[in-house]
């Protein structure tokens, strides 16, 4: 087996050194009834060629986003990733390192995390950020729990237009705590019912912008209303590229900003792994209640600047049952991909990419809106919007897929039994004008 260095001679000699004559003697603590003599009933070892062939065939059954006109979003977006990103994350020293528990030989990971935290803080307009979470949905759920700890209150108000998977992840995490989540009607686009649900017992208000339908929201009025009642505002985003063009959550009064960083550097990957972004105000109460790892600056014995994991007294390996979260892992390598891509872009590149995506979406909205029976429902959007169709969106999407266009996400896939005629459509800088023409023509064909 190509990954196992020992020869049988090595094994024999080592067993001798240990003082046993067979492997079985090393497993005598296993209850006899549970010892397997036979091999488990699975295929036996294969060479690279055979494995690659079998899995290549499986991959070949999927329609890759890059092979067709592609407009699917709803929480994961296809953007161009420079070749440099993948090269760097495959550097052995990044790829095959563990969590930086020994800082003297982990400065590469630690400095990168410090850069990541700073980039996320700048993008969101917040003071500090952690070293990443599993993904946007779990970052959102952890934010709700953190807000309850900070405010010592139990009620969370979530706008119905927050990504339903994020709502569900938050409900699951809070299920057996004192926190109760009120979710407003997703059909109510102007968030008035969110405002009216805030009261003196509210720990936090959770609003996504752009929301699941693509609609942008001004958070300032909600922030004022929340703060007036002593509640925190948690701002959620699922498309980081939007932050290149829209006002940052921190500049609109958010206390905690969480979101999905996948669209920078990470790619689609069929839903994971992604990278959760988590940022908040620089308030002692907040930082002590934050979930996840934090990299911090310090000096070494010679006074040279360096970085360590810090404030770990919040975390499970120190605090055990009193920890702020059971989180151990972050999204390490995905946060590195994010940081490298963001470094390549810089402010100028990010702003350009955001503008190109927005312009592409505007052109697409014009084209689709010109079709008889199709209505663009979203007024203010970034790169994603919702259209109303004269037929069930699921059927339309299936027909378009059959003709080679991946058209978007039927809202009913996320809100079962609701919004059957709504289709959520996204565009990015990876689309071409030709893609838009093909989509428009195909949709006209399906609807005629």
């Amino acid at each position, binding site marked *: 087996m*190509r990954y*196992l260095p020992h020869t049988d001679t090595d094994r024999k000699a080592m067993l001798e*050194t*240990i003082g046993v004559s067979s492997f079985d003697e090393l497993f005598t603590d*296993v*209850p006899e009834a549970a010892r397997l003599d036979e091999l*488990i*009933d699975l*295929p036996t*070892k294969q060479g690279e060629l055979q*494995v690659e062939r079998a899995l290549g065939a499986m991959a070949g*059954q*999927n329609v890759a*986003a890059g092979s067709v006109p592609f407009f699917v979003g709803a929480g994961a977006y296809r953007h161009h990733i420079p070749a440099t990103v993948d090269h*760097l994350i495959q550097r052995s*020293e990044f*790829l095959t390192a*563990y*969590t930086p528990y020994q800082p003297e*030989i982990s400065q590469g990971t630690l400095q990168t995390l410090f*850069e990541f935290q700073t980039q996320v803080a700048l993008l969101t307009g917040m*003071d500090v950020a952690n070293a990443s979470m*599993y993904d946007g*949905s*779990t970052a959102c759920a952890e934010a709700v729990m953190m807000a309850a700890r900070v405010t010592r209150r139990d009620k969370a108000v979530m706008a119905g237009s927050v990504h339903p998977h*994020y709502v569900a*992840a938050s409900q699951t995490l809070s*299920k057996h705590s004192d926190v109760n989540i009120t979710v407003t009607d997703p059909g109510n686009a102007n968030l008035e019912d969110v405002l009216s649900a805030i009261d003196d017992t509210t720990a936090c208000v959770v609003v996504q912008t752009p929301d699941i339908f693509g609609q942008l929201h001004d958070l300032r009025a909600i922030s004022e209303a929340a703060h007036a009642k002593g509640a925190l505002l948690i701002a959620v985003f699922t498309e980081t590229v939007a932050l*290149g063009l829209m006002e940052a959550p921190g500049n609109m009064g958010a206390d905690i900003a969480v979101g999905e960083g996948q669209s920078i550097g990470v790619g689609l*990957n*069929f839903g*994971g*792994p992604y990278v959760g972004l988590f940022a908040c105000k620089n308030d002692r109460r907040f930082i002590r209640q934050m979930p996840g790892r934090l990299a*911090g600056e*310090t*000096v*070494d*014995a*010679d006074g040279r*600047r360096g*970085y360590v994991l810090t404030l770990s007294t919040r975390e*499970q390996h*120190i605090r055990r*049952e009193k920890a702020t979260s059971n989180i151990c*892992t972050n999204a390490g*390598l*995905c*946060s*590195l991909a994010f940081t*490298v891509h963001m470094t390549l872009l*810089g402010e100028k*590149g*990010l702003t*350009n990419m955001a503008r*190109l995506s927005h*312009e592409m979406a*505007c052109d697409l909205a014009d084209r689709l809106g010109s079709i008889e029976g199709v209505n663009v429902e979203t007024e203010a959007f970034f790169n994603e919007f919702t259209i109303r169709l004269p037929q069930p969106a699921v059927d339309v999407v*299936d027909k378009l*897929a059959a003709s080679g266009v991946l058209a978007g996400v039927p809202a009913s896939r996320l809100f*079962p039994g609701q919004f059957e005629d709504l289709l959520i459509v996204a565009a990015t800088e990876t689309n071409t004008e030709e893609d838009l023409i093909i989509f428009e023509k195909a949709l006209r064909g399906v609807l005629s």
Partner: protein
Amino acid sequence: MSMNSQGRPTRIADNAATGGYADTFSGSRGLDQAEALIFERGATDRCGVDLPEPKGTALRMGGLERQGEIGLPGLSEPETMRHYVRLSRKNYAIDLGLYPLGSCTMKHNPRLNEKVARMPGFADVHPLQPASTVQGAYQLIGELGHWLMTLTGMPAVAMSPKAGAHGEFCGMLAIRAALDARGETNRRRVLVPESAHGTNPATAIQCGFTCDEIPADAGGRVDMEALKAKLGDDIAGIMLTNPNTCGLFERDIREIADLIHEAGGYFYCDGANFNAIVGRVRPGDLGVDAMHINLHKTFSTPHGGGGPGSGPTVLSEALAPFAPVPFVVQEGKSWKMVEQEEGEASESFGRMAAFHGQMGMFTRALTYMMSHGSDGLKQVANDAVLNANYILARLKHVMTPAFAGFCMHEALFDDRFLQGTGVSTLDFAKAMIDEGYHPMTMYFPLVVHGAMLIEPTETESREGLDRFIDTMEALAKAANGGETDRFLAAPVHAPTKRLDETRAARQPVLRWTAPMEDEPVAAE
């Protein structure tokens, strides 16, 4: 003098302040190169990506466009490459040497896994594409699930947990849901051995349970009498790592499972150490009700500096109905994804995260499993246990094993051999860095004083182990021979000396901030 956008000199004037050495002009020493932060290097109008010019048409963002600047610096491609390659060289990695972190299973990461994960049919597909366009992706999830269920002897698997701790959460939520379905709301106490990973108690609390610690016996295993004394009709279950964090197989595991079941509780097994028994023992045969599998440990998906992980969780017949959504189901020749809590998922405890799990880790893990096959995986367990016992056998005369007898995949020592030397476990670990090794896990498990937990994994050669053992022996002798300074000063050959962790926690600096405008620029 050249300036960057913040108006500060690009030449490092005060080397130490930006991480450089003070005794060279550049701050670098040969191949050990100083590297400032991107924020001290880049400029907001510098860019390493060529994009077309936007048309500049009117925005349709409802007046919500950003008003001020972000302040994000950019670098050109060559600068970016150099910056991160230089930083990478300040990291230890499995590809550089033995990485014997106990309970972390730092084994070789095969590159075929990386290649397969990057196939466009896996990497460039969206989780919400129509089912007809992602049949191969659904099949891959189903196939990996089949391997995991077969290797563990369990009838069901939840694929969506995103890491080990998330898998623990999944298993404990399933237990909670099963108890609630039985109407037994009094069962809230979870037994957790004191040697457990910190995630275990943190997870139990997150599920609304209380934790009750069980002590270890003198041999490092669960104290059976203490366990029996703690049973009662308020027991929800037990969370037990097996092999445990002392590197020992819990001999009484079947009796423990029976006792817990008779008491009306469920058995959660922390599968972090599955590498020791894969292919040789099926947890299903031990009475386990739920167990997470760290794909990044046993099945070699890269640790990536701390993630991403992946924690599929196998479930017993009793817990299977409560599995989280989504999950894949095969219907004839085609596959579907069950996403809502209805029909076959009507008893599901809900959704744990967006989309369908860590697909990028699934592709890597299945590639690894297919490469090994059932015969190769059994050899993995054999060689992992062989290597740990070889270390134990050869070091037990100079270091002090915490417990008598053979170990499984990791060898646990305590600090008795350092008593009276003035050298602590931490000092010993830092001296290992100077010798070119990543230290073992230190001060864990908590049941052993000054613990040193060494897990070599199966991908280390005999020659490599011999070199490591010789080094460890020499260090142990040096500590006992009065060479205290070698340890207290260590590391001296690493990219940095010991870092002040107390300062980092007392005066947290968690991000870079621009120096004040009126701050005088240091003279060159």
